[in-house]
């Protein structure tokens, strides 16, 4: 046996534990999910599982709750991703400009990300409470009446977005800060010598250099936002009037409250298709904007 051959055989042994896990918990579930999505399968009537073709997908297409779920999820994505991007980029630029105490502030911004979703929801549920909440207490102090943060249809989703921003913005800002710091100083200095203004410098030099990272940030945040579940589930239970019941929550309730496993799997595939389309679109658009 040659040295390289032996090495690659050893390599297979090194790869095996992860590969087995990957096949068992990712590849196999994908196959099962595909199988389930064309079956009628109710857990409470176990013996009755049978093939129904594309009926689950057709049902979703005609299901008003499926569409209200998509609407809620989309409204979260549309509010969340751009505000996250603007806010995190602004913070990163601010941090980059700091001359003292940058590391301490960076740590403070990251701290909320350590809280789990249950704790975050308890805390903000108290802030947002209509009568006993902290925000309304502060508003009353300055003479503004009660605001129904979580139970006014127009406000519920934005309130959840603000909470999520506080919760997750730090990590994204740190990633962007790292990218900013990697831009070689001499490029900036050369541009400054050429008399470039601050805005022009940002637009012509910093932004293009940041694009790969921005692409990464936008796509990962979009994928994450499409999967929003914990925050509305714990804060509003999906209300008011289903305004915050996203698709993942509906899938969860379909599969685990109404026991319709097949229908749940079919809707999961549809969610995946939507995410894939969005991720691809963003990739294309952002790539083009640099070129």
């Amino acid at each position, binding site marked *: 046996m040659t040295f390289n051959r032996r090495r*690659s055989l*050893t390599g297979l042994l090194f790869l095996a534990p992860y590969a087995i896990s990957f096949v068992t918990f990712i590849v196999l579930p994908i196959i099962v999910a595909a199988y389930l999505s064309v079956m009628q399968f109710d857990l409470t009537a176990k013996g009755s599982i049978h093939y129904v073709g594309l009926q689950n997908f057709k049902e979703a297409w005609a299901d008003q709750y499926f569409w209200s779920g998509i609407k809620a999820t989309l409204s979260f994505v549309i509010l969340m991703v751009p505000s996250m991007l603007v806010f995190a980029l602004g913070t990163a630029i601010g941090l980059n400009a700091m001359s003292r105490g940058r590391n301490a502030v960076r740590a403070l911004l990251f701290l909320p990300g350590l809280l789990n979703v249950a704790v975050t929801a308890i805390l903000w549920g108290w802030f947002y409470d209509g009568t006993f909440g902290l925000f309304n207490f502060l508003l009353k102090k300055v003479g503004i009446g009660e605001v129904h943060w979580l139970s006014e249809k127009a406000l519920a989703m934005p309130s959840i977005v603000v909470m999520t921003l506080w919760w997750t913005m730090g990590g994204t800002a740190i990633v962007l800060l*790292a990218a900013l710091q990697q831009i070689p100083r001499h490029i900036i200095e050369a541009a400054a010598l050429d008399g470039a203004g601050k805005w022009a410098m940002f637009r012509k030099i910093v932004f293009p250099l940041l694009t790969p990272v921005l692409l990464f940030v936008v796509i990962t945040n979009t*994928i994450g936002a499409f999967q929003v579940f914990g925050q509305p589930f*714990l804060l509003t239970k999906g209300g008011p009037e289903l305004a915050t019941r996203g698709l993942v929550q509906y899938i969860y309730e379909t599969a685990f409250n109404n026991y319709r496993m097949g229908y749940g799997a079919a809707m999961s595939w549809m969610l995946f298709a939507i995410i894939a389309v969005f991720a691809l679109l963003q990739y294309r658009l952002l790539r083009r904007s640099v070129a």
Partner: protein
Amino acid sequence: MKRLAEGLKNGLMTFLGLVFLSPIVLMVFTSMKPESEVLNPESAIPKHWTLGNFQHVLGWSEEAPFVRWLLNSVFVSTSTTLLVLTFSSMAAYAITRLKVPGGGVFLGIIVGAMMIPGQLFLVPVYLLLSKLHWLDTPAALIVPATAGGFGVFMLSQFMRSVPESLEEAAILDGCTTLGVFANVVLPLCGPAVATLGIFTFIGSWNDFLGPLVFMDSVRDYTLPVGIALYQASYYTQYGLTLATAVLGTVPLIIVFLLFQRYIVESMSSTGLKD
């Protein structure tokens, strides 16, 4: 003038940091208020400091075994981290250095699979775990978590930048492949492995959907689901629920403070190699 602008920038960002910190400080303060003061936010700082809420939470062991939840969370998160680090680093080494046939294609598949939303796996993994009789055991939370591709992807990126000459020297010295991996490659990847470990630990510690769906026995809950259960039954008493929140967060904040330098530094340096 320039110093003024600089001071302004520093001040503004420090203020932002404090704004982000304030909810957590408020949570800690409020958990130390007696119930009568909690709903009356006249002053952020308690008039009467008390540890009564904590005593109540910790003393409620039969109904809400908080210490047990803590133990479960530490066990699950540590085991998950250990397994993820072992599997991912070995796989990354095999792909980037041992040149496994098809390794590059496999890496591509792994990265592609990262795009698939986790919800798609929820029902099938659930059925699979039930077939394995792993539901309601810690294995249900630990083992499936090792399948995620992020670790392999990240460590592969990092290992490519480790100079091959060091490895060759070790091989010439008679090191086995495992020896090279453990004694040469892993130490060189220290920061990247530490980052991955911390991310994995935080992710596992805060996982909500997994334990919500896979665990039944209250005694086997991890903290997030336990805290949510506590909140559901004591929703009328903010002081108590905030005390559980503080207790559930403190261990993580300790981990964060211990590894703060690693977390932030290596997060900045490794996440973005390409």
